[in-house]
């Protein structure tokens, strides 16, 4: 078996490595910052998971929008490159979404008394998760690259509708889940500055890891495509 020839379009570049490296350092730093943050008034040390949970959820939401953007770009321009990026984004986003659900469950157990509750925020996030799992399954099931890309784009575009609903669900239904820490619709910040800093460190670190992983995954996908063609 011949390995895929690396070409300028699919060579592992220093930018990707640099972003990933910085991101990993940032995640470690962010973790320590989170673990050394002051305890919450009502929840105590448990609330430290907030520094991981919230940025992860943001990344998961961001992934949906990025995937939406690339999917629309694919449908308009028909560049295989956009399709690969959309797929990479969804896969990385799924990881973040799974982590969000997981940290959320770990947080819910001591504060709400249960791991899972069928309240709107959790339900809509679980739906979102199912939609993107469907995205990955569809990609796996379709052989023809063009049909695969089109179908996947359709799923990603329709799936992204549920992101704003999930985001606003805590407001619309006044659920068990606490409301947004930073309300993007009004720009109001609902948490103290001392707590905000570790979260922002984590947010920056996750963003770097997110971008790095997507670039890496897209490179791998590009090589796979190159080998299929050869």
């Amino acid at each position, binding site marked *: 078996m011949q390995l895929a020839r690396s070409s300028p379009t699919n060579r592992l570049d220093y930018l990707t490595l640099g972003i990933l490296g910085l991101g990993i350092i940032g995640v470690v730093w962010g973790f320590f910052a989170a673990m050394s943050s002051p305890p919450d008034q009502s929840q105590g040390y448990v609330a430290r998971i907030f520094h991981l949970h919230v940025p992860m959820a943001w990344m998961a939401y961001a992934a949906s929008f990025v995937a939406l953007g690339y999917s629309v770009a694919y*449908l308009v321009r028909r560049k295989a490159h956009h399709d690969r990026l959309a797929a990479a984004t969804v896969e990385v986003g799924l990881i973040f979404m799974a982590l969000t659900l997981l940290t959320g469950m770990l947080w819910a157990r001591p504060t709400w008394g249960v791991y899972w509750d069928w309240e709107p925020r959790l*339900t*809509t996030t679980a*739906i979102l998760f*199912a*939609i993107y799992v*469907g995205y990955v*399954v*569809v990609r796996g*099931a*379709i052989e023809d690259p*063009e*049909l695969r890309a*089109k*179908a996947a*784009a*359709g*799923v990603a*575009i*329709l*799936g992204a*509708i*549920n992101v704003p*609903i999930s985001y606003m669900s805590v407001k619309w239904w006044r659920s068990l889940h606490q409301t947004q820490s930073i309300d993007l619709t009004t720009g109001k910040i609902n948490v103290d500055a001392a707590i905000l800093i570790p979260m922002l460190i984590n947010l920056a670190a996750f963003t770097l890891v997110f971008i790095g992983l997507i670039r890496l995954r897209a490179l791998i996908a590009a090589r796979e495509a190159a080998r299929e063609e050869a």
Partner: protein
Amino acid sequence: MQRILWLAWRDLVLEFRGRTGILSAVFFLAVMLFILAMAFGPSPQALRQAAPGVLWVALAFAGSLLAGRAFGLEVEDGTLDELLLTPGSREWIYFGKLLFQFTLLLGVGLALLGLTAGLFYLPMQSWPWYILTLLLGSLGYAAISTFYAGMLARLRGREVLLPLLLFPLVIPVVLAAVRLTQGLAEGLPIVELADWLRLLLVFDVVYVTLCAVIFPYMLEG
């Protein structure tokens, strides 16, 4: 506009002449309702409580059975290409198929409503609202199912993929419809249920417009 009606009419006629699809769906539903009625036990109280959920779960399953019918015949007979070759924009294909699916689903839904009213003691005092819920719910469901059915029409494993893609997306529609039906069954005034009605309406509008916009991209080529 005329094309849309003709396309929907043709599909409906074919569906009723063929009978297999619609009959199997109705029969499937009846069996499903029997099983669910047995599962929830003989007490009318428990049955009445389960009725709204049963109604919509059954309709969702029936919808996934019927969804494949939207484009199944076109692909079998190779007429999909001819549809695509007709001059003009392609949105009308979507709307025609949507109308067909919607009518089919609505018919099945009405039959189902009667069955649940009989088998599960669903109180029918506010029946006009039930019909409205059914209308909006079927529309939202059909919007998504038609879109995916068209997208996957030429694919071999579509029977498996379709429900997998369909269900997560229609959950909001089904959820709102279930809540609405539940509230109506409990006899709540419609003002208290306005939120769910609005949600259902918003989803219908968003799904139908978005699907109609992307659909032409999905079919070409």
